[in-house]
């Protein structure tokens, strides 16, 4: 062990706070050593990704913590599980899968986590202040917490997220440290037309391209409009965290640590400058679809989970029409409760939209078993859909998804992309 522990942390490691905290501390110390962290940092909150069932190992781990008397030491939200607890009938899949998924979700509730069940905890009231040290899992949530909220977290995977929550500590490394948060790459998107940058569909494509360009480095994007929306940044970050390991991006003039390009660069020269070109954007757009067939069998939106504003846009695009294709919109239960209260949920159901809560169609078998082509406006669904669902994927904007679902055939507005 090379990480330096305080007396209090050593007491946790030695089992004075129970077996679960000791196990969590051992895993935390092993991680800190792997990462070369000199010490641990106190955290204010956690977001746990490890409540999603990927196999029985995750259940064994969570139940071992429960058996050891584990309770979270800081306010902790939960990522999606592998069940829609509000609409269990939506889920296909075998009884073992459902039983183990439920056990895993229940174990985290027993440890005192909030039942948010969303990959967008920032839409469920979990919004750390700028500069706050936190430990979050779920790649899109990590990118959002660091970039849009200005909180400080590294990418915490399953298990380590829970260990941080139980101990109230994280390894002091990476993006927890101020000097590592400066951009090293300058991404110039100024030449792209303003009309394109005003469209939601631009952002998952930009993010998908960005992830491939910057990998795990911190970048600053120059040239996005000042009025870029939170949902657009969410889509950008989610896509960038899918194709790359992007955990922090700055947007000059927009995000908290980037009042200017120079500030985001911490006053240094960028190591690399990257220019967005029409051909690279087109390539990124094409890469998001795995088929050129003009066929659509189902539509899925809401990765990250749809916000109130995105549901509003969905209702507007539907304009009172009914969809012909299976149409799934995934969200968290906080947003869903507001939708129900306003009557919007009932109207969407009448239009043929299936609202999926607590989970999503890429992590849980919800899509029709017949397979085929899935259309989505989510860069993250487009990226993970093929491997996780067996569906081919075609990417388009939300309006394209709605038109295709209403018409029952692929409809895409290609004019948006003229540059």
């Amino acid at each position, binding site marked *: 062990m090379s990480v330096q522990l305080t007396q209090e942390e050593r007491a946790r490691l030695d089992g004075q706070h129970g077996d679960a905290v000791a196990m969590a501390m051992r895993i935390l110390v092993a991680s800190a050593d792997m990462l070369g962290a000199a010490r641990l940092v106190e955290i204010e909150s956690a977001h746990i990704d490890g409540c999603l069932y990927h196999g029985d190992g995750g259940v064994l781990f969570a139940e071992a913590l429960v058996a050891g008397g584990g309770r979270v030491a800081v306010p902790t939200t939960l990522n999606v599980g592998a069940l829609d607890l509000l609409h269990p009938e939506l889920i296909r899949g075998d009884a073992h899968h459902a039983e183990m998924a439920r056990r895993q979700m229940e174990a985290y509730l027993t440890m005192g986590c909030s039942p948010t069940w969303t990959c967008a905890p920032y839409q469920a009231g979990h919004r750390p202040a700028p500069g706050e040290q936190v430990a979050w899992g*779920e790649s899109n949530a990590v990118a959002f917490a660091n970039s849009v909220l200005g909180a400080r977290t590294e990418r*915490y995977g399953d298990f380590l997220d829970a260990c941080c929550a139980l101990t109230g500590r994280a390894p002091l490394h990476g993006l927890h440290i101020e000097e590592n948060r400066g951009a090293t790459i300058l991404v110039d998107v100024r030449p792209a037309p303003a009309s394109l940058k005003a469209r939601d569909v631009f952002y998952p494509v930009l993010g998908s391209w960005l992830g491939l360009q910057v990998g795990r480095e911190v970048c600053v994007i120059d040239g996005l409009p000042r009025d870029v929306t939170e949902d657009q940044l969410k889509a950008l970050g989610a896509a960038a965290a899918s194709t790359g390991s992007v955990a922090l991006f700055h947007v000059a003039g927009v995000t908290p640590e980037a009042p200017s390009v120079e500030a985001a660069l911490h006053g240094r020269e960028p190591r690399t400058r990257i220019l967005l070109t029409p051909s690279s954007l087109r390539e990124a757009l094409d890469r998001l679809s795995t088929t050129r067939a003009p066929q659509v069998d189902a539509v899925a939106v809401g990765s990250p989970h749809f916000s109130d504003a995105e549901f509003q846009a969905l209702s507007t695009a539907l304009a009172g029409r009914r969809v012909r294709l299976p149409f799934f919109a995934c969200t968290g239960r906080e947003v869903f409760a507001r939708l129900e209260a306003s009557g919007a949920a009932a109207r969407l159901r009448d239009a043929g939209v299936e609202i999926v809560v607590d989970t999503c169609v890429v992590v849980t078998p919800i899509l029709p078993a017949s397979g085929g082509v899935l259309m989505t406006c989510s860069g993250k669904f487009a990226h993970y859909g093929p491997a996780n669902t067996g569906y081919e994927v075609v990417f388009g904007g939300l309006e394209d998804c709605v038109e295709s679902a209403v018409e029952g055939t692929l409809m895409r507005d290609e004019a948006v992309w003229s540059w």
Partner: protein
Amino acid sequence: MVRGRVLVRGDASGPLVRLSHPISFWGGVDPKTGLVCDPRHPDHGTRIAGAALALPGTVGSSSSSAVMLELIREGQAPAGLIMGSADAIVALGVVVAGELGLPTLPVLQVPWSAVEALPEGRIDIAEDGTIRGMRER
């Protein structure tokens, strides 16, 4: 001979499988089959089970540690893991396996240039982090 930084201690032997591109284990590797299952990955279909698996890096989802734990539980894990850049996500799945009384495997961090210089074929990983090719035994 190459000496790596030990992230998880252990010894192993297996055919060297070098992935050409960073990978997300979640959505990228199937724990039931031990195959690379991301159709967009250049090494799609490559078998990682039992291999001395060298990765230039990892990308994407933080659920990759859970996939690593499942690979171990299903008996489809690599024999050893050699990473171009240290990663607290995949290696963590190995640490947790140890806590749960399951088998573990060595995880090393080695500069990618040194990984590229390793000979084809079987390699041995020793507890101290040394990697030897077959002809060096």
